[in-house]
């Protein structure tokens, strides 16, 4: 029997053709355009308001970036859900799976190649947002803070964690649309709800991916406070309610996101590896 091709060589092949597949779809172009339009719109509004107003509202460049990037988390979630939502479901639903999974390639190799391709495509989209933010901060403040690099690193970590969750749903559901919708709902609504509950009950939501992702902006915030509580009067009898506010330390956010990355990627692999193709 001829020697089988190495896993590494097959991983390169899986990566290259998956990336090519992404680049040829309107989905990728659409996501890129969506992020570019949102970034440009934010910049346009601020240019309209003028340098004086912007720098008065945000005295430091880091603080400005922190607020500029507040939409980035949602953009990463949408990007990750669309890139990862059908990555494995396409095989498990039949059709292309009957071609691909009959090849002498380990499913772990296919998964790794596709994950890397989704990461590269996602990072390319995310960098558009960062390019706009860097241009904006340079224009308004004349410098780009080094902390922006940390933020990019944390955003990349958030992207791969989101992709891991999307890959898991993609291996769980056999339909691409359902896995994309499930990913968006859980990431965009489910996790923020968990974080909000933590805020109301005074429990630091360290178990929420959404909470971990706040490190992307908190690393830029010059007035960073890990935990604060604000008492707000409620009713006429002098009763006040406490509203807690938690922000993750950058390392803490990184650990939360890394934990999600590892655990959901392992779950996605197990589902993809052992699921039968019956459709």
């Amino acid at each position: 029997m001829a020697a089988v091709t190495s896993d590494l060589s097959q991983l390169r092949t899986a990566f290259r053709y998956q990336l090519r597949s992404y680049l040829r779809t309107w989905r990728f172009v659409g996501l890129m355009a969506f992020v570019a339009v949102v970034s440009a719109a934010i910049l346009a509004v601020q240019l309209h308001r003028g340098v004086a107003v912007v720098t008065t509202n945000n005295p430091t460049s880091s603080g400005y970036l922190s607020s500029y990037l507040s939409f980035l988390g949602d953009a990463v979630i949408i990007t990750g859900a669309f890139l990862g939502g059908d990555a494995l479901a396409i095989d498990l639903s039949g059709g292309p799976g009957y071609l691909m999974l009959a090849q002498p390639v380990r499913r772990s190799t296919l998964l790794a190649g596709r994950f890397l391709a989704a990461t590269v495509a996602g990072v390319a989209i995310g960098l558009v947002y960062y390019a706009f933010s860097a241009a904006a901060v340079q224009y308004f403040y004349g410098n780009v803070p080094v902390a922006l690099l940390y933020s990019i690193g944390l955003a990349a970590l958030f992207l791969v964690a989101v992709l891991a969750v999307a890959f898991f749903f993609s291996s769980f559901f056999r339909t691409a649309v359902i896995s994309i919708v499930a990913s968006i709902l859980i990431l965009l609504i489910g996790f923020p709800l968990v974080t909000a509950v933590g805020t109301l009950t005074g429990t630091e939501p360290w178990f929420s991916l959404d909470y971990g992702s706040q490190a992307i902006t908190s690393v830029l915030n010059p007035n960073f406070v890990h935990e604060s509580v604000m008492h707000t009067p409620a009713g006429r009898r002098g009763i006040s309610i406490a509203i807690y506010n938690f922000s993750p330390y950058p390392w803490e956010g990184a650990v939360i996101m890394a934990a999600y990355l590892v655990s959901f990627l392992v779950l996605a692999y197990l589902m993809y590896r052992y699921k039968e193709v019956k459709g």
Partner: protein
Amino acid sequence: MPTIEAVELTKRFSSVTALDQASFRYEGGGAIGYLGPNGAGKTTTLKLFTAFLRPTRGSALINGVDVQSDPKTGLWEVGSLVETPEPYPSLTARDTLSMIGEFHGLSREQIRDRTDRYAQELELPPLDRKTGKLSKGQKQRIVLATLLLAEPKVLLLDEPTSGLDPAERVIIRNLLVRLKQENRLILMSSHLLQEVTEICDRVIFINQGRILLQDTVENIGSRFRVTRLDVEFAGSVDSHLLSALPGVAQVQPVSPTRFRLSFDGSEETRGAILEGCQRVGRVLSFSSSALTLEDAYMRLIQGDPRGRGMPSSG
């Protein structure tokens, strides 16, 4: 030498037993027809051999390797066409062929040369078109080309000509005959008994998950006496003349030049009918093998005892 072997292969879906202790072993080149009605367990068997499903019991071995425990090595020299495989819609036909070729460790030159060869032989559509924009038949030919690209020694085919037009069927049939002659081992399920007769040397009959009979097409003929014949004449023939031939019990016209004759099944009568037909008109063909399979198929499915206790030949 290529081998495929099922060892008490069993698959249950909840309370339904789709495949029940199927065992067979085939070695060397040749084509095996896998016959049975819908739901008999044919596709389940092929899915177990390609690791799409996991067996409840038993094992599926290709070239001595259990495809479940080591699918990468087990499927290394295998080309399969199970259910309806499709290329990824956003890749072009050329990308699809290159990707599969690279997975199999082929060099760029090998991929290019073989792509050109199969583009001609299988009449592939334009290779730079996205496969999502191709017709079903075109996609199926692309998939077939990917299957052949690595020149696998074992081919597992699930109704390979299903959904194809007559011209496409001829292309595939000729290709399979050539592959068989090149010493490949082909296991193909089909409902088209004429096709199986033309391509396969051996057949396996399966029903309700159980293998009923496996033997060579020749032996099936002697085991199940032929009682029908297909005759084709060069020109139109009056069916009454055929009815009057000694030994002919019934005549069923298929076309003005083709007839299906029923008789008692003895060799003497068959010989007499051939002589009689030659007096009636110029005989172009006089065949019984497809009918043999059809008869055997129908009798086995209906529980003919001749299908039980037959030796498993490989």
